[in-house]
């Protein structure tokens, strides 16, 4: 699904990612953990194609194709989804309108006609129920006046609607109370399929009590310094990031 080779990234001349290697297969859930400021969000943005980052070396292969030359919207249309750490407000644009626009643009990219309204609304209904969301969410403006928890749930809802091949969830657990955390985790688990994959980026081990990862990576100072099974997360929780620092 995703294969990152020796990825080096700088921002304004300062190297943030110093040679990332990562392989994610279909059907897998990966967790990337690490202390603040080690490049977790940078990695997510670079994969998603945000401008302002300079890739100095390496490649990102997604579904067999190097995507570094693709724009952010092309990558999204290819099936890449980023759950934002800080979802952005778009005043006056309803979630329904936003998602319909997104789905139709993605369909256009694939040479398909716009989704019929009835089909679209039925899908909204289905996904809302799946994620146990309230009715009124869809008519509200995108993230405007949302609580932290609502914003994160809205990210998961968009993910459910867009059905990506690969979802990267950047600190989706931060700022969530335990109920919201459970809803988000349940959503991720329910959307898990043999033909898609998820990368969960998190600071804490807490989320991993609800989403069981196949592989855990520790990102430290721009490199993945350790990879292992889910027990690695527990070890990290127990020993703290100091342990990594001393090991690396």
């Amino acid at each position, binding site marked *: 699904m995703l294969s990152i080779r020796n990825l080096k990234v700088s921002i304004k001349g300062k190297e943030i990612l110093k040679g990332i290697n990562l392989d994610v297969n279909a059907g897998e859930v990966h967790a990337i953990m690490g202390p603040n400021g080690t490049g977790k969000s940078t990695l997510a943005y670079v994969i*998603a*194609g*945000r*401008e*302002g980052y300079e890739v100095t070396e390496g490649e990102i292969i997604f579904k067999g194709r190097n995507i570094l030359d693709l*724009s*952010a*919207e092309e990558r*999204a*249309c290819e099936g890449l*989804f*980023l759950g*934002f750490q800080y*979802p*952005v*407000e*778009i*005043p*006056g*644009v309803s979630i329904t*309108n*936003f*998602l319909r*626009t*997104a*789905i139709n*643009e*993605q369909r256009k*990219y694939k040479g398909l006609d716009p989704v019929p309204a009835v089909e679209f609304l039925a899908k909204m209904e289905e996904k809302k129920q799946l994620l146990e969301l309230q009715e009124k969410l869809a008519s509200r*403006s995108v993230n405007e006046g949302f609580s932290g928890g609502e914003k994160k749930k809205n990210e998961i809802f*968009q993910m459910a609607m*867009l059905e990506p091949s690969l979802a990267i969830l950047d600190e989706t657990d931060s700022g969530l109370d335990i109920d919201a955390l459970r809803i988000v985790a349940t959503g991720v688990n329910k959307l898990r399929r043999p033909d898609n994959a998820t990368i969960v980026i998190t600071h804490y081990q807490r989320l991993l009590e609800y989403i069981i990862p196949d592989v855990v990576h520790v990102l430290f100072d721009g490199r993945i310094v350790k990879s292992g099974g889910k027990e690695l997360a527990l070890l990290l929780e127990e020993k703290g990031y100091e342990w990594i620092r001393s090991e690396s």
Partner: protein
Amino acid sequence: MEKNQNNILEEVTNSDYKYGFHTNIEMDLAAVGLSEDTVRFISAKKNEPDWMLEFRLTSYRHWLTLTEPKWAHIHHPAIKYQDIIYYAAPKRKKELASLDEVDPELLDTFKKLGISLDEQKKLSGVAVDAVIDSVSVKTTFTDTLSKYGVIFCSFSDAVQNHPDLVKQYMGSVVPSNDNFFAALNSAVFSDGSFCYIPKGVRCPVELSTYFRINAANTGQFERTLIIADEGAYVSYMEGCTAPMRDENQLHAAIVEIVAMKDAEVKYSTVQNWYPGNKKGEGGIYNFVTKRGICKGSHSKISWTQVETGSAITWKYPSVVLMGDNSIGEFYSVAVTNNFQQADTGSKMIHLGKNTKSTIISKGISAGQSNNSYRGLVKVIKRAENARNFSQCDSLLLGDKCGAHTFPYIKAENHTSIIEHEATTSKISDDQLFYCKQRGISSESAIGLIVNGYAKEVLMHLPMEFAVEAQKLLAISLEGSVG
């Protein structure tokens, strides 16, 4: 990133004006320039009664004493009033009895503009008055409306057939000596729409006037007069386009609205005159005086405008709140791109007790354009408990455009409550990236964000206009990202 932004901006702002064609129609033209003879010529062409000619001549003589207003935040080369043709009309041989007699070229023009003058238009429930250059070519639906006592016809017809109404109300809201452009219009106006809704009648269809400038070197000077008698209601829509020409053309119109006791008038405009090219050449100079008076108590006048066209826009749709408990509203979206200049806003004059007004203005600037809001809220001494709420928001796309706000407040009664809110924002990189990450292209993202920003105004437009306006907003800004 800055550079990238500007690139995207440039792409978006580079879409073309799709109404820029012109039609070859045999025209009846006045000689170039303006004099008493021109005024007499126009009046004679229209076979007008003496009182009408007198009105024109008085206006003309007053105009000669005036100079162009200089206070607006706009710049343009001097307008050469003696180089303009003040009357242009499609030639016609006799009175039109049915649509079959309308010049097919003309019908074709309106077809291209997406306006059907066909009787079929009845099905969509909109009555249309089509004005090309100086003359009303066709008013649809007249028969049906007359059953309700509603008069909807060209201004010229009204002068002939309803002289008493015209005499009573013309110039009663916008006097001919109101300002430079109003005086000019009053002297040389050629046609326009007239509408009277009798007591207690709720006009069963939306009324609409479609203005089209076609001929070269001409100015367009139309006037509209709407009278809603006691308890009447009407929703009125106005649309406008012009061919692409590299000279500037002058459009100086007047709209007057009178709302009697308990009456309500909703006036919606989608102004899409040719804005000039990307270098700022050509385009319409749009100097318009629009004013309504809430004459009776509990009356209401509501202006909604979406302004995307014209090289220069100078207009301040206003409401004089004379009747107690009357309501004035102004909802506006003004988009400027490339080198366009807009100085637009509203005036709310509170004369009666418990009068209420609302001003919602959304400016969107892109390219190297300048967009100004100018507004006046005035409460006189005896207007107890007057209330106004104004909100002026500006959205900037790119870093070469300007947004300005000039709000004036004059309150002479201490019981009045006046609120003014203003914001200035940019479309952020974060918003754009968020949209793009969902698969939405820059262009669509801007369309989406801008329409969301303008939603409060767009929701006041009649349905069929709203859809058009949304598309127009997206097209006007195609390519501009901030």
